[in-house]
Each structure stands twice: as C-alpha cells, then as structure tokens.
C-alpha cells in the first residue's frame, strides 16, 4: 500500500491506496471526484485528462503514487463557485458538447492548450492539439469553435490586463 498525499484543486488530500492504483481511480474512488472520466483502456481517448503540476496528462496512464507530492487540477477545480471558467463557458455557449462524456477531458486539454499557445491559436493548431481527445458525438466542429472562442476571450482579457 502506498500513502499518497497531493494537492487537488487547491486542497491537500491524502489517502492509502494500492501501489497499482491509477491516478484516475484515486481521484474518482478515494476522493469522489467523478468529473474525470475513463473512456478507454488504451490511453487514447483523453476523457481522463487532468493537470499535474500545471501540465495536461492522462490520469489513466499515471499511477496515483507517481503523482504523490504533486499539485493536481481536475474539471471540478476550474469554476470559481458558480462562475464558469471561460473555457467551460465557451463550451456552453457554442454547443461544444452533446452527451458530455468527453467534455471534462476536452476542457482540461483546451485550458492547457490555451495556456501554452496564448491567443495565437488557429483552427489547424486546435485540431492537431486535439489528437489525444476523442469525441463520439460532435464531429469536433463545435469543440474547435468553443476553444477558439475561449482563446480569444482569454487572450483579450490578458491584453486588457497588460
């Protein structure tokens, strides 16, 4: 058994889990943070994407023990109370989801993507950056639209702040 402690969405958490426990299982079962999904068994779909120490990773492809000591952000950590994160808001406004299963991973991937590229995102970049996130419903069109809208808003807000 591993003693695991980490910061999740700003809160220090700790727990015991078998060494083979995946980070996604730890989040969902030990911490009851079920917003992070599992959509495949092959590390390909991206439904499980969370941020570990500020970087998007597949939480189904990392042991919880590997993340011990790290700072983790999940979909539950994005909104500020009732105020949605700009990327969440953009998905809402642009109909960026249908069944919603892929959405937590899509949004975590999008936040990471916008952080790395800033306002410079174009459609081709968004599409190639979504390589690791699979959606069964939307055909991606409105996901791309949502991410571009959020990037423009976040980029604009950054410029205004400077």
């Amino acid at each position, binding site marked *: 058994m*591993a003693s695991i402690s980490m910061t999740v969405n700003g809160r220090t958490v700790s727990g015991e889990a*078998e*060494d*083979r426990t*995946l980070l996604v299982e730890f989040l969902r079962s030990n911490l009851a943070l079920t917003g992070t999904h599992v959509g495949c*068994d*092959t*590390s*390909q779909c*991206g439904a499980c*994407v969370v941020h570990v120490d500020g*970087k*998007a*990773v*597949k939480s*189904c*492809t*990392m*042991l919880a*023990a*590997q993340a011990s000591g790290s700072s983790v952000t999940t979909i539950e950590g994005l909104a500020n109370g009732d105020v949605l994160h700009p990327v969440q808001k953009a998905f809402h406004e642009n109909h960026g989801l249908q069944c919603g299963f892929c959405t937590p991973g899509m949004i975590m*991937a999008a936040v*990471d*993507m916008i952080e*790395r590229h800033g306002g410079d995102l174009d459609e081709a970049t968004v599409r190639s*950056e979504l*390589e*690791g*996130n699979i959606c069964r419903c939307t055909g991606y069109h409105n996901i791309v639209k949502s991410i571009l809208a959020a990037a423009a808003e976040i980029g604009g807000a950054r410029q205004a702040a400077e």
Partner: protein
Amino acid sequence: MYATNYHRASSLSEAEQMLAAAEEGKLLSGGQTLIPTMKQRLAAPTDVVDLRHVAELKGISVSGGVVKIGAGTTHAEVAGSADIQSACPALAGLASHIGDPHVRHMGTIGGSIANNDPAADYPSAMLALNATIHTNKREIAADDFFVGMFETALGDDEIVTAVSFEAPDSAAYQKFPNPASRYAMAGVFVAKKGGTVRVGVTGAGSDGVYRASDMEQALSGSFSPDALDGVSVDPGGMLSDIHGTAEYRAHLVKVMAKRAVAAA
C-alpha cells in the same frame, strides 16, 4: 493491472539499488508505454522504479556542436527546446509529432529508445544522427544499440542516462502516421554531416528500425530526392499487417525518404 510495488528513486545510484533489490523490477520513466502495457497485463513487473525524480537524467545541453539530451527529458521538452530547435530542428519537429500533447508531457526519449517499438519515431533519428547512447555502465553506438523489434543491447540492470550526437549540417524527418494511432507506418530520418549521409527507417522494417544503406550511398553521391529514383526497397524485409502490406510499406519508405531529402 497486476499488483506491483512502487519505488521512487531520487538519484541514479538509488535507482540501481532499487532495481537490483527487486525480484522482477522495471524502470518507470514517462510510463506512456509501460503503464498501458501493465494495464493490459502484457507486463507484470513485481516492482517499478520511478525515474522521474532523478535529476541526473534531466536536461539538454549543446556545446561545441555536440547535443546531449538526458534520458528523462520529455518529448514536449525536446520539441520546445530553443537549443534543439537551432542545433537540430528536425529532432524538435519529430518530438512535436509523437502521440498527443498529454503523451508528450510525460513520455521521455530514454523510455522511447529503451522500448524500441518498431514504429517509434526516435530510434530512426538516433541511427541517422549516429548518436551515442549513454548508460550507467557504458556508451553504446546507436548502430549497436537497436538490436531488433522491442530489443536493445541494454542489460537487465542497465539504465539509459542520455543520448548525444554531433549536430548535423542538415536533417529532416518525414513520417506517414497511422491514421488511428499516429505511430509511424513508415518514418524516415535523413541526416547529412560533411560528405556522409545516414538514413534511419522506422515503422516499416520487419526487424524494427534499420539503416537504408543503399539510400545512404545514393545520397552521398548527390543529396537530392532524384538520387533515390534508382533505389528499390525490397518488400521482403517489410512489416505486413492490417494497416498495410509489405509492398505498400516498401513504397512508403521511398516516398518518405524523398520527402525527407527535399525538406532537409
């Protein structure tokens, strides 16, 4: 996944000790190959030794034209490194097209070459760049390191610590990705240094990554795509699977090689 014991090494010597003490231990770097394999129960190490906190395995340096990349350097770090982008942009480009952003945040160059997947990208670059693979025990020329499919010259207790190579005069990598997995169906890395041209081919050969010596000869005479017109790729040595026949891959190798020369 079968049960396993997790160990976190904080130095190379600690990693060696942890591996030696394990019944059937495995090194865990980015985990982007090992963990999916363990989930599928295709690997069942009794112990995993996490290398992500070993400082000796990190970092990129370029000095006197020699590029050295620590084994624990992630694909994202290689892709984003200003030093690699100026010393060998082809390698930065290769790294930027491995898998997806999440895989690139975790996966490492050491893990990729130690695994030597027949469709992995880095091994072709290591061969074409005439790289040296550094381990905790010795230095191995890339030519001797990649032995066959998923097979390397590494001993059971050997840890890749870094790779190094002389920056080429020009180089390029062209990959025809499998439309679903994005692994190479054929990937060709071409590097020119002085009068010498080396060509590494991945994704296609039935015995894993290899050097295309007839292409190297043709290109040493004239470094242009046309120089490859007279070279034929034998389907006899190619992989054949649901993704493509041996003939298809043989054709792809030549097309990718020509594109790489044109881009170099």
